[in-house]
């Protein structure tokens, strides 16, 4: 139930083709924008919609668009961030695989609004077969006159290209993405200047997530006010949630923001409850970098109110008792899962993905990985727990880009909520190793 604005036709056979997509109302937003709206009017609708960036940061899209510098004679670019790499997140992949034309339509309408005549979809290299899907759809769109010169007789010229990456989480950070698109290592840039002023090839650039750009289509079709009627408060519209972990029905779901977390986990419409009848232990609601919540803070806030799937409710209580909606990468842990092992796993991930520019992140992520590994393997000390928290604190806020924060938050939150489990690893190493290795039935070589 609930309205679906993006995935409404996702299961229509052939919706990946131009013909079927068009038959189901495709490219109406381009027609409407080009024929009856000025670019600024499109930006205005996006502002009215209250749409917030769907990649994780949740920054108001209309506001981001309005920051775009418009110097005379300098090209502007829209770059779609399809580098989806946040552990727990696989929604953009679903959207691009199923309805590639929705993204293309969103790119045209958004580029018209921003005055960009060339745009790029930067997609993670591992999604290679989706590059094929997108390029096929782009070819169809050119053939039907939605891309290229003088689109539908409007005088608006627009070219769209796909640029695959090659394996680097950091390229999801917008300035690293721009560096990568320029053919370099994905090292984030120091800001300011922001991409809105100096982005791709030093030109004004907007970088938006796939889902954000797709959401522009229903916003232009139905009007920003209609879109804003869905949801609660500043969490407007629908959101794609990638549900994974120990649940009965993992997958991608489009929800109206405001669904209760309890319903989302236990209703058959979405996750369908915990697998094998186990109990809920913890949940990471917005991708690996957001704070983990212990079971008693997942469905209720610390104040005892129902926790909702909104930016505000998931953050209720701040980092002390709340988390973040983030990218909507919703990972569920059952009672058998080891928090120390999971935290080690995430720390290894961030260590591997650190670009190495900033010492706190380059060194700190490695230290956290090592300390967590020795704890997980029965060689931890009680003082390690505070040391870990201290390392995390010293990374947070001290790096060029948010990867440092993303690496620190899971560690801080795990210690905050599961300190006893860390202590248990130190005090009863044999028992905890037996339990954990009984679960995984093997040892993974460090640095894996």
């Amino acid at each position, binding site marked *: 139930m609930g309205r679906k604005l993006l995935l409404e036709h996702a299961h229509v056979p052939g919706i990946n083709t131009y013909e079927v997509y068009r038959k189901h109302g495709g490219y109406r937003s381009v027609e409407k924008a080009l024929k009856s709206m000025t670019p600024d009017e499109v930006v205005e609708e996006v502002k009215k919609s209250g749409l917030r960036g769907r990649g994780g940061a949740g920054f108001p899209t209309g506001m981001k668009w309005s920051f775009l510098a418009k110097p005379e004679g300098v090209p502007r670019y829209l770059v779609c961030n399809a580098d989806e790499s946040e552990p727990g997140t696989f929604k953009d992949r679903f959207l691009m695989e199923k309805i590639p034309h929705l993204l293309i339509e969103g790119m045209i309408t958004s580029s018209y609004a921003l005055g960009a005549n060339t745009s790029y979809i930067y997609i993670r290299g591992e999604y290679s077969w989706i590059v094929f899907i997108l390029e096929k759809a782009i070819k169809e769109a050119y053939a039907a006159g939605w891309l290229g010169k003088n689109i539908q007789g409007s005088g608006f010229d627009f070219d769209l290209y796909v640029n695959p990456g090659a394996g*680097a989480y950091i390229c999801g950070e917008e300035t690293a993405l721009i560096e990568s698109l320029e053919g370099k290592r994905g090292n984030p840039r120091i800001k300011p200047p922001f991409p809105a002023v100096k982005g791709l090839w030093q030109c004004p650039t907007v970088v938006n997530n796939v889902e954000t750009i797709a959401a522009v289509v229903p916003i232009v079709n139905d009007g920003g006010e209609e879109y804003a009627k869905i949801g609660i408060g500043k969490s407007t519209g629908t959101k794609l949630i990638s549900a994974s972990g120990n649940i009965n029905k993992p997958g991608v779901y489009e929800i109206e923001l405001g669904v209760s977390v309890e319903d989302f986990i236990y209703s058959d419409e979405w996750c369908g409850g915990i697998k094998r009848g186990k109990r809920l232990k913890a949940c990471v609601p917005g991708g690996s970098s957001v704070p983990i919540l212990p079971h008693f803070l997942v469905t209720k806030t610390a104040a005892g109110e129902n926790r909702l799937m909104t930016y505000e409710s998931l953050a209720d209580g701040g980092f002390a008792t709340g988390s973040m909606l983030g990218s909507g990468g919703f990972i569920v842990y059952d009672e058998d899962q080891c928090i120390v092992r999971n935290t080690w796993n995430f720390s290894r991930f961030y260590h591997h993905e650190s670009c190495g520019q900033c010492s706190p992140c380059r060194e700190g992520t490695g230290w956290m990985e090592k300390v967590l590994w020795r704890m997980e393997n029965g060689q931890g000390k009680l003082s390690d727990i505070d040391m870990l928290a201290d390392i995390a604190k010293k990374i947070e806020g001290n790096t060029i880009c948010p990867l440092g924060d993303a690496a620190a938050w899971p560690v801080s939150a795990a210690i905050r909520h599961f300190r006893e489990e860390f202590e248990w690893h130190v005090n009863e190493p044999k028992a905890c190793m037996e339990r954990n290795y009984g679960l995984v039935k093997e040892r993974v070589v460090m640095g894996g």
Partner: protein
Amino acid sequence: MNAVVGTNGTPFRYSEAALAEVRDLIKKYPEGRGKSAILRALHIAQEENHGWLSAPAMDHVAEVLSITPIEVYEVASFYSMFNLEPVGKYVLEFCQTGPCAIEGAERIIEYTKQKLGVGKNETTADGMFTIKQVECLGACGYAPMMQVGEFFHEHLDEAKIDQFIDDCRAGKINKGTWKMH
């Protein structure tokens, strides 16, 4: 990230079709910004060089893109999809990150290692299989999973691994190619 740039390897040049493709790619970027085609140019070179980037392969890419070899080395060594050492015909890249790990990835990786008798980043003696452990590939809801060539193989279990290995040996597995793009 990879750190070592391979120095060995036989001479490399793109096939005619690949060279034409890379020249087309360069046109997607503004005049003088052809360097932007580097990632795709390297993917293609890697495919045509038996799955890895040798120094001669990277030098050739530099020449085609009209940039210096160091600009190619520094990029090739940054991104995890580029292999700077020889690999087997089928590179099994298992996701080992959080959501896959709690749904059995560690067990499946260990099973495959034992079945093939190789460890992480090792290649079987017959040159058929290399096992890599990689970070989140965006298939968390379909765990455990691995990537082989251009495609994902999801919801893995022991039986599926057995079948997959047999199918590779029988030449029935499609790894995909840049030519489909």
